[in-house]
């Protein structure tokens, strides 16, 4: 499959993503000129159940990390007997190496607002909140202006486009907590509490904000809705693969020639992403490893990169697409340094509610510190594996469950680097490493 480059083709976002701190680049007149809000107009003339059905037919899955089918989530909220409902956009984007949601909010804010309004109509919600991380003041400003412009134009607020449907949208700012991106922690945060996760079930679709049914979706997920409703499920399914329809925004960073945001149809291989979008490895160096899915993702060697960007194919190889962060390491980089950085990140962000994560991360950090200082032993490697498995299986929330992914995958693929850092592993054994 060939990669169609940003802005040059008929995908979901169709824009040339550019960096910088600019505000809204596609303003409301621009957005209307490119066909914006036609999907909402069309939806308002049909039954909300039809909107949910189209999203189900399109096969859209959540782009925030967990890949849950979006149409099904909508149906759960829609079918709830409680009439007070909420739609929340998760714009906490805390996964290190990810910047797609920031770009959507600063480049195409109205596509997100239209998507949220469609979602609200579909599930019968009249109130919505966009939870935007504190670190993104430019995104908060862009969305604030865009909400005002949409209200002014009758596209948000009371009686949208002259219909019976009303939807009121507010911004809520995070305050620097990665964990608040977890949906139940996010709810606690809005409710004025510490951003600690709650037990699931009940899921937010049953008991969300203030105990009411709540649809929580990622920015990218919601911004897909105008394309799906506007152009139909059949068109949407013409992008991507049968397993994973549509496109994915990829935040590409690290040792490639072109870092940046790229929209690619599902089904391309990771190698194609690195070569076609990234323009290959910087300074003519060789590829050593790729970290897919951010801090909570995995580290894989070059031979895994023929794997296609597709939920099914990736699950089989234990690759986590996650938020779509792809971070490339060349052959001068140390895997252990990368893992140490990730472990420190999780220790800092752990809320301490459950023992496996709180204590496990302390131990993991201690051992990696010892390894990096040349004082590790072979028994430390066994402990690393044991603690990480414990976190994966017994941690209360997704943070602790995913905190060891980088570690376990790198231990599997780059074990020789760990062994080389152990003072009691013989040089002969060191040579037999797998990397």
């Amino acid at each position, binding site marked *: 499959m060939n990669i169609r480059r940003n802005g040059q083709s008929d995908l979901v976002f169709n824009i040339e993503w550019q960096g910088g701190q600019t505000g809204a680049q596609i303003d409301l007149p621009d957005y209307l000129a490119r066909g914006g809000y036609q999907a909402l107009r069309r939806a308002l003339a049909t039954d909300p159940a039809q909107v949910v059905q189209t999203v189900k037919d399109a096969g859209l899955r959540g782009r925030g990390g967990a890949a849950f089918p979006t149409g099904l989530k909508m149906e759960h909220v829609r079918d709830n007997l409680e009439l007070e409902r909420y739609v929340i956009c998760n714009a906490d984007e805390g996964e290190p190496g990810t910047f797609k949601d920031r770009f959507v909010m600063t480049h195409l804010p109205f596509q997100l607002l239209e998507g949220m309004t469609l979602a609200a109509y579909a599930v019968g919600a009249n109130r919505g909140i966009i939870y935007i991380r504190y*670190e993104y003041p430019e995104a908060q400003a862009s969305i604030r202006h865009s909400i005002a412009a949409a209200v002014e134009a009758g596209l948000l607020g009371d009686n949208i486009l002259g219909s019976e449907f009303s939807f009121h949208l507010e911004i809520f*700012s995070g305050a620097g907590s*990665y964990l608040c991106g977890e949906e139940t922690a996010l709810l606690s945060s809005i409710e004025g509490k510490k951003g600690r996760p709650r037990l699931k079930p009940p899921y937010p679709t049953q008991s969300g904000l203030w105990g009411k049914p709540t649809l929580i979706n990622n920015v990218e997920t919601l911004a897909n809705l105008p394309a799906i409703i506007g152009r139909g499920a059949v068109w949407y399914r013409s992008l991507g693969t049968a397993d994973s329809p549509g496109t994915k925004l990829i935040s590409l960073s690290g040792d490639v020639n072109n870092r940046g945001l790229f929209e690619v149809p599902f089904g391309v291989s990771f190698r194609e992403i690195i070569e076609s979008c990234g323009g290959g490895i910087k300074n003519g160096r060789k590829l050593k490893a790729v970290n897919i899915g951010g801090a909570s993702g995995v580290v894989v060697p070059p031979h895994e990169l023929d794997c296609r960007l597709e939920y099914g194919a990736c699950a089989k190889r234990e690759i986590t697409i996650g938020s779509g962060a792809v971070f490339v390491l060349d052959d001068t980089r140390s895997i252990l340094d990368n893992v140490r950085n990730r472990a420190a990140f999780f220790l800092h962000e752990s809320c301490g509610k459950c023992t496996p994560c709180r204590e496990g991360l302390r131990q993991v950090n201690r051992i990696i510190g010892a390894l990096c200082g040349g004082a590790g032993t072979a028994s430390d490697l066994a402990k690393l594996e044991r603690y990480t498995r414990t976190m994966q299986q017994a941690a209360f929330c997704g943070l602790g469950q995913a905190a060891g992914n980088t570690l376990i995958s790198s231990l599997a693929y780059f074990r020789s680097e760990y062994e080389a850092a152990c003072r009691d592993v013989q040089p002969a054994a060191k040579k037999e490493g797998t990397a």
Partner: protein
Amino acid sequence: MLDKGKSVQAIISEIGTSKTALLPILLAVQDASPAHYVNEAAMNEIAARLKLSRSRVYSTASFYSEISLKPRGRNIVQVCVNAPCENAGKAAIIRALENELTITLGETSADAQFTLEGVNCLGACYLSPAIKVNGRLYGNLTAAAAVDIIRQCREGEAN
């Protein structure tokens, strides 16, 4: 009362006293404080006005990395410490900033002019290494460029 700027009372009248107002109020109080922090008196006042226990306000305030309970410098320099920025040369940037400011990461200068903090991903990894100074993003940094930014800050203050 705050050191300077808007009063806690004015902020609460603006944002309201619903339960969901707590975090927005804390952030606004910090924004209004020239030393970029939330002091104990302010937390007590918020607790009283929102009819929450003081421990509840403290527990929320202390949970979030972006809320400081200690006074900070007038200028806040935040260095991204996550992996993409680390790979792109974060350590050299931090060293240069520490030398220029004669403080270490996490500290505030004696003249209360600068605080140097390590922060998580700024969503600018396509520009790594990246830092933020007073909320403004700078990317593709070299050590020399980072030092220049600090000097410009000082000149801006002098004028």
